[in-house]
């Protein structure tokens, strides 16, 4: 032990008007990759949105990099890859990746970071192309490059490997896991494919369908 926790969830209840998911206690340390899996509509995306500060918890606390909700963590601490990617469609690949680079905690070498992450994602030739003209898989790589250029302490990724072929998926996974281990960041990813989730992550959270029980307690969260 002794590794500082980047994310700490305490008695957290996630949802919009009613509780979708309840987590009693969870810590994610530096260098950890946690995969969350479970059926659709169970609250996986809501969990990521709550951790990122986009959604207020119904009750409980989220602590990211020592900052407790409702306060927001420092600029650039969280890199979020939503399911819909959240790219500026009318801007170029470069502009999108620079957006992440500008959001970084350190303002130095922002261009270099953007170039490196574009290269890591194999998008050098598409650098000045408008995002809307790229394929779904290429757009996904732009979103990942944007997050890598940001060099966040916590990466939240919602099904970030979907639409990628096997070879590209391996390349992207390698780049992201290398970043997490080298920088001491943490990562929480939502993944439907359990075998893929096991491959990438150190820990796996399987969330049951708790439709009969409005409160999914920590006993229904199985750590594998």
């Amino acid at each position, binding site marked *: 032990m002794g590794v500082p926790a980047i994310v700490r969830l305490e008695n957290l209840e996630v949802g919009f008007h009613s509780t979708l998911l309840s987590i009693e206690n969870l810590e994610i340390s530096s260098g950890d990759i946690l995969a969350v899996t479970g059926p659709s509509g169970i609250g996986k995306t809501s969990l990521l*949105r709550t951790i*990122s*500060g*986009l959604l207020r918890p119904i009750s409980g606390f989220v602590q990211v990099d020592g900052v407790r909700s409702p306060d*927001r*963590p*420092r*600029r*650039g*601490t*969280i*890199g*979020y*890859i*939503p399911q*819909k*990617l*959240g*790219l*500026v*469609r*009318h*801007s170029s690949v470069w*502009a999108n990746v620079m*957006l*992440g680079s*500008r*959001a970084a905690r350190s303002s130095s070498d922002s261009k270099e970071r953007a170039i490196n992450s574009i290269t890591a994602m194999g998008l050098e030739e598409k650098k000045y192309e408008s995002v*809307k003209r790229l394929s779904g898989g290429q757009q996904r790589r732009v*979103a990942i490059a*944007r997050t890598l250029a*940001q060099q*966040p302490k916590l990466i*939240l990724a919602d099904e970030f490997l979907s639409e990628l072929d096997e070879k590209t998926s391996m390349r992207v996974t390698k780049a992201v896991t290398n970043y997490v281990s080298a920088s001491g960041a943490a990562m929480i990813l939502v993944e439907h494919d359990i075998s893929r989730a096991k491959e990438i992550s150190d820990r796996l959270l399987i969330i049951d369908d708790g439709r009969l029980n409005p409160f999914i307690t920590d006993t229904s969260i199985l750590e594998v």
Partner: protein
Amino acid sequence: MAGMDREFKELLISVTTVIIGFWAIVQLTSGLIWDWNGWKALEPQSYPPCEVNNFFQFACSTAWIGMIETIKIAILATFFGMLLSLPLGLLSSRNLFPSYITYPSRAIVSACRSLPSLIWAIVFVIIVGLGPTAGVLAMSIYTVGYLGKMQYESIEGMNSAPLEAANAMGLSKAEISLWVVIPETANHLIAQMIFMFEYNVRSGTVIGIVGAGGIGYYINLYLKFLEYERVAAYLVIIFLAVLIIDMVSIYLRSFFVDDSEKTKPSWSGVILPPKETIDPPRSSNPQQF
């Protein structure tokens, strides 16, 4: 080929209808309010002397001077209106700012829109005196109200995913506005600005009546002298100028909609419906769907 024939046929029908309609109006109103003497409106003014080439003498006429002044007023009003309305449009967007910012900002936008440009023109003629300056100010204020509303509605309708990603990253509101919102809604903002210019040209013909410059000033003048044939000629000139500006505006706006990716904008698209609606489906067999 069948599509081309149909396109040509529709163009022919449109042009013929316009010519027959115009001819009918001329015949019906001839002698009442219409007189070819009215076209003296296109003759150069006797003073100051016209020094341009004989072929371009019409450029010294009151009709030309008035119309050009109206267009200049519209360009400046659209420019200044856009400069002011964009920050207000951003501040009024509920997906960007909290209600204690959006409400006051929306109130300013609504206040600018609450009076028509003609009333604003009267107000500014009183403040800054007669002339195009009053016209530019009046129409700029109205543009802020009208364009501001269209802008915040576009911004509120944008995809929420880029905003969520930028918010999670911790970017400031100014950075989100500059690097996410404006690029993402740029097509809408440009199309709205072009539409507003077209609107300002139309409404700019009216504000001259209260002394705020443009072609309306001359219309008002000739109405007072009971020179209705000249007024009629002016109205036709305004109609033609607005028609041309409308068509150019439709053409330019077609570059800033997502559909332009599939079909390149064309001049025929200004008059005729898009080709997809002209060409009948190749197969009429519903089972193929």
